[in-house]
């Protein structure tokens, strides 16, 4: 246990600290509950996007396999050369319950039409075109998913951190302070009893002294 001076002022200070710690604990518990509510909402959205991503990936892979099989790898490679482009993503930030979370937004949708994909539609089969479309849809979901997953991760980390703080206050700090208060109180009571005993003895001595003088 931390070295404690068993004084009345120390006792008052410790009591004040307990009160402050309990208030902090309540606030942290409230924050944790609010973060959990937010977390569950984000979790639902993440699951929805995750399922959508899995479905899109499966469909795109299948379309790619069919296009590769029917049109050949060469045709696909050639079309792929024409469609290369960059994806513009905007990165900003926001705060949820005091937690900084990055916000990822699409600068421009990666989904293009057959006529704006970079190649001439007359020379590319609809299988290749539909495959490109499916992969662009994956990109679209991936950007949304990146945003929501980062948010989920940050909220999760914050909930863990808050939980650790609540536990530390609840199971370490407050019990330690209570122990110190109890120690100070015991020490002060002990001192009070000693004082009382000493005073009684002094009183007894004075009284016996006075009685002797009266006799003598």
């Amino acid at each position, binding site marked *: 246990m931390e070295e404690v001076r068993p004084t009345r002022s120390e006792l008052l200070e410790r009591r004040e600290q307990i009160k402050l710690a309990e208030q902090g604990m309540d606030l942290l518990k409230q924050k944790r509950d609010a973060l959990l509510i937010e977390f569950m909402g984000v979790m639902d959205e993440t699951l929805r996007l995750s399922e959508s991503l899995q479905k899109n990936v499966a469909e795109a*892979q*299948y379309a790619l*396999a*069919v296009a*590769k*099989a*029917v049109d*050949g*790898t*060469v*045709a696909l*490679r*050639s079309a792929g*050369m*024409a469609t*290369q482009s960059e994806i513009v993503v905007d990165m900003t930030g926001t705060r949820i319950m005091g937690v900084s979370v990055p916000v990822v937004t699409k600068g421009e949708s990666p989904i293009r*039409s*057959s*006529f704006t994909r*970079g*190649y*001439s*539609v*007359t*020379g590319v*089969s*609809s*299988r290749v*075109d*539909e495959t490109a479309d499916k992969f662009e849809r994956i990109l679209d979901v991936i950007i949304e998913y990146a945003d929501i997953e980062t948010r989920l991760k940050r909220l999760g980390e914050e909930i863990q951190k808050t939980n650790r703080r609540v536990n530390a206050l609840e199971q370490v700090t407050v019990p330690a302070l209570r122990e110190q208060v109890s120690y100070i109180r015991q020490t002060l009571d002990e001192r009070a009893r000693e004082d009382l005993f000493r005073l009684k003895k002094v009183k007894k001595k004075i009284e016996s002294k006075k009685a002797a003088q009266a006799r003598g």
Partner: protein
Amino acid sequence: MSVTTTSSRNRSPASPKDYGYANARIRGMRSRLLSRTFLDGLIAEQSVQRLVQEMDGTEYTSDLEDALIHGIDATSVDVALRNNMVQTFQKIMSFLNAEAEYLVTTLLGRWDIFNLKTILRAKHMHLPLDELKDGLLPAGQLTPVDLEALAAAEDVRTVVDIAVTWGLPMASALREGHAEFMRTGELASLELALDRYYSEWAKARLSRRGANMRMARKVLATQVDVANLVMVLRLQSADIETIDVDQYFLEGGADITRELYMVLSKMSDIDEVLERLRGTPYGRALDDVSIKYLEQNSISVFERALEDLFMRRTLGIAKGDPLGIGVAVSYLWAKQNEITNLRIIVKGKAVGMPEDRVREELILV
């Protein structure tokens, strides 16, 4: 450069219009095409490895041995099939008579357009040479050496300049498309100029008289009709208010005229297009797959049905005249179809595609 003249290739000793020698050789080669039973056996195989073993002893053996040195997978098999196709096409070209060579090079000219587009795309995107080489298929007049020289060009402009210097047939289209490319910075316009050029160029080359010329013209016309029909169907899902529909029409078709194309492309939905096409040679093929289209919601269903129809028609032209161009053309497309079928089976096996789905994609004639 070997493309400026058609007389530079090795040729059989036969006269310019004697098809006897070439057709006899082609019939021999045709007899070695894989049967439907053999393909059924391949579909039933459990793995790509077993499938490749099963193909031992076919025309593909040596190409497979060369390509599968580093292991058996679908991509290596694809390379082997591609090499086999290029070699077969080159072999056929080596013994065709002058007229047949003229007709076949015209019909295979689309491969030159394909390769040129690949080179232009790679140059536009500044892709490395190795990556570019994987996207080439020298099945047309441009030889691997020609393609390598074009691929080594620094940029789009240099490719156009080389094409003009060599006097390639499509140089004028490249020059015209390059001006538009410089203005917009988009390669699609240059590619479209090449596609349009090819159909016009091929139509002009096949406009002479004669039974063989007529037969080749018929193949080209069906090919162009199919391309125009697929475009009409693709336009149904596009915002046609913002697109110049007319520019995507390719000349050289037979049944799909420019007027019909314009009417079809402005229709409100696919059902209306199918209704209007009833009575044309393509109506039935499209109608047959209309339910499948509704199930899959994919234009590629119609495209595959039209490819199927085109393949059946092209493979059937050999029946009319055993001493005409039909034998060579029919064989070249049959070979191409066989390679596509093999690729579908191998790829289907590699990704675990159900057998029914594999069979649906095959064109068995």
